[in-house]
Each structure stands twice: as C-alpha cells, then as structure tokens.
C-alpha cells in the first residue's frame, strides 16, 4: 500500500513516466533533492492529519518545513503535550528516524555501485584516447606529403595549360574564319537547295563580323560575295513571293525572311497584300463566274422550261437539286447556298488566313522586334483594314448580286440558311479584326436581303391574289349559263336543286370560301417562310433589327398590312376601271369580292394580324397601322364593291328596259295581248340576281308588309289609284290636276335616291337594283310619245313587274310608287289615253 502510494505520488509530482531505476543514474544533487522530496512526501503521507493540514508554511514547528526550529518545536511539544503524548511522539519520531536511516543506507549503497562502474569506464577511455592520438599524428603527416606532391604537379602542368587555352582559342577563330570563307559557298549551296531560311540564318551570323572587318581586303571580298549571294537570294525570294504559286505558309515564310533581310516593311506589306489580293481575286472571279449565266445554262433552262414553269405554277417547291431549282429565272446554275458556301470556304477563309498571317508577320511580330519603333504595326494595320474593306466590299457586291437574283420565293429556307452561313462566317473576320466595318456591312446585306425578300413575298402574294381572282373569274365565266338557266328553270326557287346538276363546285359560296382559304393559306405559308429569318438558330436573328424593326415594319407593315391594303385597293380598282369600260368585271366577281372584303373586315384581318403578332412577337416601337384602320378600309372597299355591283346589275337591266322603250314605235302599236318578253327577261334576271346575292348575303330586313301582300293586294291598290288618277287627268277642264296626285304623294314620301349606298344584305341590294331599273324605265318613258295601245302595253308591263318585283325589295310601296309614276308619265305622254280595264290587265299578266 505504501509503495503504491509512493509510486503514484512521484508520478503526480514530477510527471516523469520512467521507473525509479532509470532515474538512479542521474546526477547527484538532482537525485538527492528528489529523494528528499520523496521522503518528505512519504512522511507527509504517514502523518496525514498533521502534515497535510499544515501547508508549507513558515511554521518553525513543522518538522518537514524548511524553517524548522528544533528548539521551538521541542518547547512547543513540552508545553502542549501530555506525557503520554510526548511518549507517543517520541516513539513515532524514533520510528521515523530509523526508517530514514535505512533509506539513507539504501541510497548510499546504490550510489556507490554506480560510482564504481563510472570509475571503471573512465579508466578504459583514458587508454583508448592514447591510441587515437597516435593515429592522428600519422594522418597529418600523410596529408602534408600529399599537399607537397600536388603543388609539385600543378607547377609542372602550368605551361601546358596556357598553351592549350591558346590553342583552343585559335581553333575557334579558325573555325569562324573557315565559316566565313565557306560562307559564300554555303550560301550558294543553300540557294541551290532552296534552304533560304538556313542561308539567311548563316548570313545574319556573319553579317556583323563582315561589317566590322570590311576594311580587310579578304573580308571585303567575302562580304561582297555574300552580299551578291544574298541579293540574289533576296531576288529569288522576291521572285517566289511574286510568283505566288506557293502556299500561304510558304509565302509567310518568305516574308519573314525578307523582313530579316531588312526589306522595307511597308513595301512588303503592299506586296504581301497585293499578292493575297490576286489570289483572293481569283476566288472572287470564280464566284462572279457563277453569277454569270453559263451558255449551257440557258439551253438547259429551255429544255426544262416547261417543267420549271409547271412546278412553279403548282407552287410546290420540289427542290431536288440545284439544276431543277424552282427559281423562275435561273441565271446561274448553282443555288444560293452552294454559292455562299463556296464564297465562305474559298474567299472568306482565305481572307481570314491572309489576315492571320499578315497580323502574325507584320503586327504581332513587329511589336516584339525592333520594327515596333517605326510605327510599323499602325501602318500595317491601316493597310490591312483598307485591304480587307476593299475586298470585302467587292465580295459583298457579288453576294448582293447573287442574292438579288434570288427572285423565286419557293424555298426560303435555302436563302435563310445561306444568309446565316454568310453571316456566321463573317464573325471570324470580326474576331480577327475587331474594329472592322465588314461584319456590319455583312449584317446590312442580310437586312437588305431580308427586306428584299419581304418585298418579293408581298409581290408574290399580290400576284397570287390576282391569279386566284383570274381563276375565280374563269370559274364564274364557264358555268354561268348553266347557273342562269338552272335558276330560271327553278323559277326563283332556291338554288339547292340546280346546284347539284353542275359538274364543278363553282357555286359562289364555295368559290368564296376556297378563295379566302387559299389566300389565308398563302399568307400563312409566307409568314412561316419569313419566320425563318427570326429563328433561334440563325445567327443574325438576335440582331436588333431582326428583333424589332424587321418584325414590326418589315413583316407586319410592309408585308401583311400592305397585302391587305392591296386587296382593298385592287378591289376598289375594279369599281373604277369597270365603270367606264362598261362592266369588264363580271358582276358575280364584284359580289364575291365585296363579300370577301366584308369577311376581312369582320374577322380575317384581325385574325391575320393576331397571327402575325403572335408569330413574330412584335414589339411596337414605331407606330403601326391599327386593325381598325384596316377594317375600315376593308369595309369601305366592300361597300364600294357592293354599290358597284348594284350599279352594274342595275345598268344591265336598265339597258334592256331602255332599249325596249327606245326602239319601239309606241304610237302605232297593236293592242297588248301579252306581257312583253323584255319584262319577263327583267323578272328572270332579277330573280337570278336575287339568287346570286342570296348565296353570299343574308336576307336583311324588310319593312313590315301585310302577310298576304300578294299581287291581289297590289291589284286593289293599284287599280283604285290608277283609275282615280286617270279619271282626274282625262278631264280637260282641269289641266292643273295632272300632277296633283303624284305631287301629293311626293310630299308625303321621302325622296328616293336612286344610286345610293346599299346595306350589306340581300334586300337592300335588290332594292337598289330595282330602283335603278325602274327609274330608267320612267325616264325613258318620259322621252316617248304613246298611242292608246302603247299606254295599255305599259300598263300591262308595269302590272307584271309589280306582280314579281315586290318580293325583292325592302319596301314594296317603293315599287308601287315607281310603277305608278311610270304609268302616270306614260299616260301624260299619251295622245289618246284610254287605259285598259284592270281585269283585262290581270288576265293578260296571269297568262304570262
């Protein structure tokens, strides 16, 4: 227990992990101190109560403390303790002393042993050192001998060394001289072998020396020889440079060598560029040759002429190979993509190569070398820019010419791809020449090409529109007779039955819908084609022009809006030109176009524009034509067309009526037995017009009329009125009465505008036509003089018209009134006015 505690105590106090045996060999005082400490600890542990409680104080009574005073301690004990305690103390003390003594003995013994062994070791060392000292003496003697020898040898070799050094110097000099002497020959040989680079290298090495020693005749000779050779070499290099047969790499090597030969850089730049130019020009000429028509191309064109035209007409871009391209005027036999490809691969890449090598030679190189001081880079850069600009301009003009030839609009993707490639390849130039205007010019070309293309699409759309109109016109012309006869046979019945009898689907609604659909499809396909310009994978599509202006101004305004305007415009032209030439436009076409324009106004325009805006995400930076303007224009065109239709149809019927009135001798006519054929014709034509209009326009509103407003209603009305009027007008005593009834009627009825605007419905159209016809009838009647039977014939005719025409108009009173006017006027113009009995009239009219 005690040993264990000791061990632990030591560990804690010193932190040494070694065992007591290892410690024993330490030096004395340290060891002693430590043992003393250990002992102290030991006692402290034994007398726990006292020693632990008393810190290492200055207490002189502490037997373990450093200030222990035996006298005081004794006195204290004697004063404080009882005898028994003293006894105990004494025993304890004795015990402790004894134990300490034994400890001391042990320690002394251990130390003694160690001391003995140390003494032994020291004695042994003493012997060894003595031996070593002898050996060292021997070594120093040897070293002295070696030093002596060495000194002796170097002394002997001194002379020879100097000689060798000298010899080697001479040798070098000789070799140099030999080099110099051999230089002309070597240069010649190099020249022969065309190892120009080596020759120049050699000459450069020798040049300074030769220059320095040129006052010596022999060197002078060499120098002259060398000069001659080098001149020749330079000559040859220049020749090679001029010949231009070598590759760009050879060429640049040439230039490099010439530069090293102190050729003036400016001249070299010029030469280099002029040489490059000649080569680039040959590229350009190659390109130009492609633009020019080949003699064989025209023959080939003729051979495949009809095929081309047929495919072009069909509008199906069957693009198989360049030779059967659908370009309508193939002035070159390569397509544009091939052309641009060739331009890129040959011209642009050579140009890039030239730029690179030029920059390498004259700019980068010169910046490092001594040439930089002479402003060579700036000069060279300026030349290069001018050179590139010049050539690029020519290239661009060629490209533009080629693009201009691209008139066919069949396959736009080809052009877009070509332009894309063109633009993409120019980016290389941008990288090489950051400040150059070339890429911008290229972009401008692309922009021009795009706008040009948009224009072409517009004209293509326009011609497509006109072509479709021609088709419609033809379709209208061919089956018209059958339509007319069919509708007449139907006697005014709806055209459902007769329509099925026709072979081709040529009814107006079908024509209208097919026309409208084909135009819309064409617009869509054009939009899709134009959309290629703004596709994401096209390099130039992210240029600001293609993002903004192209979409809004280009596509929306100058393509879509222009086309719509063109449609309206051309429609209006139909009204104007046809008016004077007497109806060169078939009326049905007018009607159809009018409906087309109206449809545009109601839906198609906004649809097309929405489509455009969606496809092109138009951001309207600049003001654009609003939909309402276009709609108003379309509506105006529709109105004009419909008015014109009314006019034309009215005129056709008027013409019949006028001729029938003018060519007849109304004074000497026979008693009417029939309705005149022309009236039947008028009714038939009116009926067929009604059917025609009904195909495209809604019925419209009529003024309310009595449910059985049949001819009977009219008969009563008309007979009573007419009788009254005639009775009045035939009394000779009252000439003033002639106009009374008519005038009273006029006072209460509104003024009738004959050629006025019509509404977009069937009834209004028919009213317009009938108004025009009847007014003509009236005016013609007033210019004639009638006999008795003439008047009666007019009565019959008017009654017949009344029977059939009222159903077409919005207000049947209008027909009543105008027919009354006619009969009244003819009664006035009658020499012997004896009207026919109403019943007889009715009978005649019933008979037909």
């Amino acid at each position, binding site marked *: 227990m005690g040993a264990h505690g000791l061990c632990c105590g030591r560990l804690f106090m010193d932190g040494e992990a070694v065992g007591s045996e290892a410690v024993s060999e330490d030096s004395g005082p340290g060891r002693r101190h430590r043992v003393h400490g250990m002992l102290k600890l030991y006692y402290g542990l034994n007398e726990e109560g006292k020693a632990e409680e008393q810190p290492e104080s200055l207490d002189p009574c502490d037997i373990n403390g450093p200030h222990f005073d035996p006298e005081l301690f004794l006195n204290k004990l004697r004063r404080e303790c009882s005898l028994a305690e003293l006894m105990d103390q004494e025993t304890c003390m004795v015990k402790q002393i004894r134990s300490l003594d034994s400890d001391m003995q042990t320690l002394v013994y251990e130390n003694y042993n160690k001391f003995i062994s140390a003494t032994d070791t020291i004695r042994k060392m003493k012997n060894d050192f003595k031996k070593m000292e002898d050996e060292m003496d021997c070594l120093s003697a040897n070293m002295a001998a070696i030093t002596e020898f060495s000194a002796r040898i170097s002394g002997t070799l001194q002379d020879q060394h100097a000689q060798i050094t000298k010899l080697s110097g001479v040798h070098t000099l000789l070799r140099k001289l030999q080099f110099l002497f051999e230089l002309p020959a070597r240069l010649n040989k190099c020249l022969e072998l065309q190892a120009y680079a080596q020759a120049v290298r050699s000459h450069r090495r020798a040049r300074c020396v030769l220059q320095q020693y040129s006052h010596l005749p022999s060197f002078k000779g060499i120098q002259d020889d060398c000069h001659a050779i080098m001149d020749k070499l330079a000559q040859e290099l220049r020749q090679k440079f001029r010949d231009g047969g070598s590759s760009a790499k050879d060429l640049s090597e040439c230039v490099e060598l010439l530069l090293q030969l102190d050729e003036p850089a400016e001249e070299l730049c010029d030469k280099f560029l002029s040489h490059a130019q000649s080569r680039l020009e040959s590229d350009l000429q190659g390109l130009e040759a492609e633009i020019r028509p080949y003699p064989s191309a025209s023959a080939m064109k003729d051979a495949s002429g009809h095929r081309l035209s047929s495919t072009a007409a069909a509008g199906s871009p069957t693009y198989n190979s360049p030779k059967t391209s659908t370009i309508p005027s193939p002035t070159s036999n390569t397509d544009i993509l091939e052309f641009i490809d060739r331009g890129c691969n040959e011209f642009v890449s050579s140009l890039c190569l030239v730029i690179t090598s030029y920059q390498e030679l004259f700019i980068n190189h010169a910046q490092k070398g001594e040439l930089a001081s002479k402003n060579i880079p700036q000069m060279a850069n300026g030349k290069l820019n001018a050179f590139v600009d010049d050539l690029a301009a020519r290239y661009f003009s060629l490209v533009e010419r080629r693009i201009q030839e691209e008139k066919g609009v069949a396959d736009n993707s080809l052009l877009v791809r070509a332009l894309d490639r063109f633009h993409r390849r120019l980016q290389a130039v941008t990288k090489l020449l950051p400040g150059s205007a070339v890429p911008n010019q290229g972009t401008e070309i692309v922009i021009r090409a795009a706008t040009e293309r948009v224009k072409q699409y517009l004209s293509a759309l326009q011609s497509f529109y006109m072509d479709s109109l021609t088709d419609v016109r033809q379709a209208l012309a061919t089956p018209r007779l059958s339509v007319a006869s069919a509708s007449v046979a139907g006697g005014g019945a709806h055209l459902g039955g007769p329509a099925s009898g026709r072979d081709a689907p040529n009814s107006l609604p079908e024509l209208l819908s097919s026309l409208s659909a084909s135009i819309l499809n064409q617009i869509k396909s054009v939009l899709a084609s134009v959309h290629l310009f703004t596709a994401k994978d096209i390099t130039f599509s992210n240029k600001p022009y293609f993002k903004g202006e192209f979409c809004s101004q280009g596509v929306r305004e100058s393509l879509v809006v222009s086309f719509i305007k063109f449609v309206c415009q051309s429609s209006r032209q139909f009204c104007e030109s046809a008016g004077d030439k007497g109806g060169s436009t078939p009326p049905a076409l007018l009607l159809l176009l009018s409906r087309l324009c109206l449809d545009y106004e109601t839906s198609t325009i906004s649809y097309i524009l929405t489509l455009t805006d969606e496809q092109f995400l138009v951001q309207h930076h600049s003001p654009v034509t609003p939909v309402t303007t276009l709609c108003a224009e379309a509506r105006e065109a529709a109105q004009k067309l419909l008015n014109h239709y009314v006019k034309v149809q009215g005129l056709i019927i008027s013409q019949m009526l006028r001729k029938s009135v003018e060519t007849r001798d109304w*004074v000497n006519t026979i008693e009417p037995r029939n309705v005149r054929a022309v009236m039947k014709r008028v009714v038939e034509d009116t009926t067929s017009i009604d059917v025609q209009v009904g195909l495209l326009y809604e019925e419209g509103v009529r003024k309310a009329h009595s449910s059985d407003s049949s001819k009977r209603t009219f008969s009563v009305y008309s007979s009573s009125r007419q009788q009254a009027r005639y009775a009045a007008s035939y009394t000779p005593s009252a000439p003033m009465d002639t106009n009374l009834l008519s005038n009273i009627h006029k006072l209460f009825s509104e003024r009738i505008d004959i050629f006025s605007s019509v509404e977009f419905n069937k009834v209004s159209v028919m009213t317009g036509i009938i108004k025009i016809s009847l007014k003509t009838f009236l005016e013609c009647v007033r210019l004639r003089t009638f006999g008795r039977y003439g008047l009666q014939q007019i009565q019959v005719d008017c009654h017949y018209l009344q029977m059939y025409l009222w159903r077409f108009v919005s207000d049947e009173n209008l027909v009543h009134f105008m027919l009354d006017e006619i009969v009244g006027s003819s009664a*006035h113009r009658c020499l012997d006015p004896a009207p026919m009995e109403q019943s007889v009239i009715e009978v005649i009219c019933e008979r037909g």
Partner: protein
Amino acid sequence: MEDDAPVIYGLEFQARALTAQTAETDAIRFLVGTQSLKFDNQIHIIDFDDENNIINKNVLLHQAGEIWHIGASPADKAVLTTCYNKTSDSRVVSCAAVWRMPSDWETGSHESPDDSAHNPQTLELLCHLDDSAHSNAACVLWEPMGDGKRVISLADNHALLWDLQESSTQATVSSTATLEGKGQLKFTSGKWSPHHNCSQLATANDTAIRGWDLRTMSQIYCIENAHGQLVRDLDFNPNRQYYLASCGDDCKVKFWDVRNVQEPVKSLEEHSHWVWSVRYNHSHDQLVLTASSDSRLILSNMVSISSEPFGHLVDDEELSEGEDNHQEDKSKEPLKDSVVSTYEEHEDSVYAAEWSSADPWLFASLSYDGRLVINRVPRALKYRILL
C-alpha cells in the same frame, strides 16, 4: 338670308325646255317651253324683278307642238328657235323652227298681267329649219355672240349649219356634217364653242363626245366612252378655250381638256341619278351648275380648273360680316373644288338649268312637273369671288 331664298314659279304643264334670253342684258329673263300633248303649248317669258323678288310672266302660244328644246338669239331679243314634236296622222315628227315674238307682248302683259294667260298672243313663225332630207332635230344652237345669222341644228346623225337671211325669214343650209358609223347614230346634244372665232362645235352621241371644225365640217377630236352611258349635255368653259364640261347617265360630270382626251381633267359624282344639264357661269367659270333627274340642282365651285385658279384674296372684314356657313373652312386656305350648294326645291326630275344672261349670280332651273326655281349664288361665295 331673306333675299337668298329661292323664288318658285309653277307652270301648268310639264316642261323641259329652258333658256335665258341671251340678247337681253338688262332684265333677268328666262324662256320656258312646255310639253303637252293635249293642249296648246306655250312659251313662258319669265321676268324676275331682282329688287322686289317678284316674278312677272308672259305667255306666248306655240301651237306647233310640244317643245323639247328652246334657244334664244344672241342678237335679237325677239327671235328664238324651238325644237318641237308635231303629231299628225298618228305619227310623231320632230321639227325645228325660228320664231319671232310679237312686238307688243311686253306692253300687253303690263297692262293686264292677270288676263295674259287667258288670252295669249301667238308666236310668229319666221322659217322652218327642216328640209326633206333631214328631220328629227334634237336641238338648235345659235352662234355664240354672233349676229343672229347662223344656227346649227342637230338632226339625227347630221349637223346642219344654216344661214338665216332676210330678217331670218329664210334659212338655207350652208354646210352639213354627217356622223358615220355602225348602227343608228343620233346626236343627243351639242354646243357651239365660243372660242376659235366660233369655228368649233362639240356634239354628243351615245357615250362619245366629238369636236367638229365648222370651216371644213370635219371631225377634229373624239372622246370615245366619255361617260359610261349616254352623254346628256355639254358646255364650253367661257374663258378657257380647250375646256369642256359634260354630263351623262353615269351620274357624273366630267371636265375635259380637248387637247388630251384620254382622261378627264376632273370628274364629279355628286348626283344620285342621271345628270341632264351642265352649265358654266358665263363670267366666273369656276361656278358650274348641274341638273339631274334625282330632282336636285347642284352648284359646284371648280376653282382648280377655272381661269382663276387662285381666286381673289379674301378680305377678312367682309367675311366677318356675313355669317354664312360657307366661309369657315375657306377663309384661310386656298380655295378648293367643292360643292357650293345643293338645291332641293324640285320634286321631279330637273332637266334644265340656266344662268341668267343679265345677272351672273342668278340662275333658273326647271323640273318636269313645270316648276321653275330661281336661285342665287350664295352671297359669301359671291363676295369671295368678287373681292
């Protein structure tokens, strides 16, 4: 304005023929010929008292037949021509004749204006303008500003130049021109040009307008398809010798420069039915009067093709006085071609309109129902032109 209100006069009969009494330059006087198959036709002499706004009428009987066209001699106030229809044996024949008014028609009317209708005097026939070969006269034209010795009658497809002799009691055909072509060609109307020493005539047939040189009686120009349909009337610009106005059944009024007949100089489409008459104002050729069977009369101001295309400067003070609504848009900017006014007093087709020969600001129009309306040029426009 009160004195701008139209003055209306009603005839008992239907009427188409109207003319100003050309030789009369003091009184405002119009002649109207009636059309009646059953009664004796009349020529109404309408005197308009400008100051009192009163119409005085005198009636002369024209018993030969219904009058389709009437023309007053430029030299003799009392002489006039008519084209009329005569019916005999159930045949209708168109004739032309020169007449003289009885010398005392005026005095008679002044004494008893109310009775004049009951007891009218009769025209005195001077001579017929017909010969056996040429009948069916459409119209008779006096030589403008002439001495009343020469007239042209248009009969079917012939233009006949007559010399009137011995106080117009004898007429001889001095030369003729014939319109040749396919079908039955017929002159519908014509006009004797006051320019070029009165050596030119313009005629209308169907849709074409033709110019004739009276010295050679040959055609000098032809405007084919001048109108889409019948050409109804012509008139020469009194101040610009090459300018000609025409109107027709396509509702249009067109102005031509006869040196270039491909395109009209100007075209108006204001009427809604056939235009039957077009008349330049005799003094101010920008004022053009048109009459139409849409019962309207339209006065247009064709400044751009007039002899005074820039007009006169307008005095602002003058304008501020008149509050007429025509001023507002024209006071500052240069004058534009425009419709000055549309007159809707008629209720039937208006077949004739004429300017007064005495007062350049006054005109008359005649509708089929026998209504004669006398109107004035709006005062504001008058001042603008004058000042």
